């Protein structure tokens, strides 16, 4: 799956797409692939405060749990309720329908430290080498 160029990416495999002062956050195709079949997603309620680099929820597969780290600081304005009943969406459409939260950025500067699509793809390629080695 291609990594949208309009997104920014974290080393922990989250993506964020910013429109105006609001960002939509999800996990990358690589992340969902590593996790396998996702069975449960735990997200904070709207209104919760996020801090860049801090865990704000978990994604569970049958045999693994993984923390979700916030790419930016800000307040959650909306969470994706659909995932409660259809966690499998994360496997099917990680960069689209399976977005996790929408955040109102408190410090747009956070974005500077994130990777663009090209460098993230390179980063992932590295990772895959390690695991296959």
């Amino acid at each position, binding site marked *: 799956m291609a990594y949208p160029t309009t997104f920014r990416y974290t080393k922990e495999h989250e993506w964020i797409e910013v429109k105006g002062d609001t960002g939509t956050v999800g996990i990358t195709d690589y992340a969902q692939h590593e996790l396998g*079949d996702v*069975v*449960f997603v735990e997200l904070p309620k709207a209104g919760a405060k996020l801090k860049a680099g801090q865990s704000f929820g978990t994604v*569970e597969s*049958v045999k693994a749990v993984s923390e979700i780290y916030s790419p930016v600081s800000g307040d959650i304005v909306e969470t994706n309720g659909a995932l409660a009943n259809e*966690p*499998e969406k994360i496997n099917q459409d990680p960069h689209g329908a399976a977005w996790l939260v929408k955040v109102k950025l408190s410090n747009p500067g956070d974005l500077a430290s994130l990777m663009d699509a090209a460098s993230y793809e390179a980063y992932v390629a590295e990772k895959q080498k390690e695991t296959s080695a």
Partner: protein
Amino acid sequence: MAAMDDKIRKAGRHTSQSEGLIFEKSAPGKRGIELPPLDVPAVDAQKELGAAQARKAVEGFPEVSEIEVIRHFTRLSTWNYAIDLGMYPLGSCTMKYNPRVNEHVARLEGIATEHPFQPAALSQGCLKILQTLQDCLLEITGMDAVTLQPAAGAQGELTGLLLIRAYLESQGNPRRKVLIPDSAHGTNPATAVIAGYEVENIRSESHGQIDVEKLRELVTEDVAALMITNPSTLGIFEERIAEIAEILHSRGALLYMDGANMNALAGIARPGEFGVDVMHLNLHKTFSTPHGGGGPGAGPVAVKKVLEPFLPVPVLVSKPDGSLALDFNRAKSIGRVRAFSGNFGVLVRALAYTLAYGPGIRQATEDAVLNANYIRKGLEGAFDLPYALPSMHEVVFSDARQKKNGVNTMDIAKRLIDYGFHPYTTAFPLIVPGAMMIEPTESESKEECDLFIEAMRAIAEEAATTPQLVKTAPHSTRVGRLDEVTAARKPILRWKPKTSPEAAD
């Protein structure tokens, strides 16, 4: 390849009768127990308890006869694999023979029937059993004091860390961190956190041993203890264990040992003599008490003298008159980790086991190590051995070779089922990708070990020639691989009756 005689080999097939849920057999008016007639005047619950408190009926409870209950659970039982059926080589679980006499004595009138609150004068038998077991465990571990209260290994771990915390507090500083090797059991980090400590992982060096130089750097004033398993989960003895203890002690930290692998040491070496300060034992492993499909267990904790004042209450004491009693007033105690006197029934079984061997327990250890090394030899060449150091009671292979054909450790484990064996432990320890952790225990005959080796080699062959056959295993069981994903996404955790229990009240 096996000699072409028609010798009966291990059953490949697990045939069994079908059986629904007990609730699906229920019909009004049937029952499996009858009570003697009431010999006092009956009372009206509605009146005695008040309409608000009285319950009309327990809806959704089965109504079945005695023979139906017998058949139901007997049929269910035939769907289980068990030590009684064959080798159960689960690494780090020590699935050894569970002697039947242990079950018998635990059920004796006067043993099973005793109440924890009955007067000490009427409990001398129970207390002597506890005392004798304590003495045996101390002799085997070389420690100074022990509590039998923890209900299982994991609770023993917690008790041990709480003791360490209490001791360090009494020294003025509980400290912040507990060091845990990357090869440790999952319970270790979980326990450390519940005991209020931060976990810092310490990597193993290339041979699978603790990196002593790294340890030297990591042990600071902040470190409360190092939690190790010895022999490690790789089945390898920490050769520099004394040095490791030395480093910790020199910085005021303690050495905690997870006794999960004591089956490799009993009668051979005593943790108390290689620097361990606190350790727990799993009586359901080394001391043969039955796993029973997942418990009950017992996790006694043995300590050095300095930690004794902090042991959970009550502790066993002997009175001037020579009688035994429980002492509840211990100022420094960490308190209770469980109500009453621990899993007494399990302790009884463990003592029966120890008495059966006496000093001969060394022979059991020798046979366990002999079996592990025999199997290691038999499988070398067929499977990849990631750590070459000598094995003790268990050996860890990896699926590296079979991976090339897309066959992983879980597939091989499942295929073992078709060969009439329980799988080994898969994917643990975490530091071995695709781990195959094999612990035969002393309870396996040479013939059973040979059959196991033969089966594993046959599977290695299949993995190379017909991987699909291995990847879709098991083929011989009642049910095939179950859809765990759907089970987790849309959990069904109970049977539901037509009317909910609430409706009945």
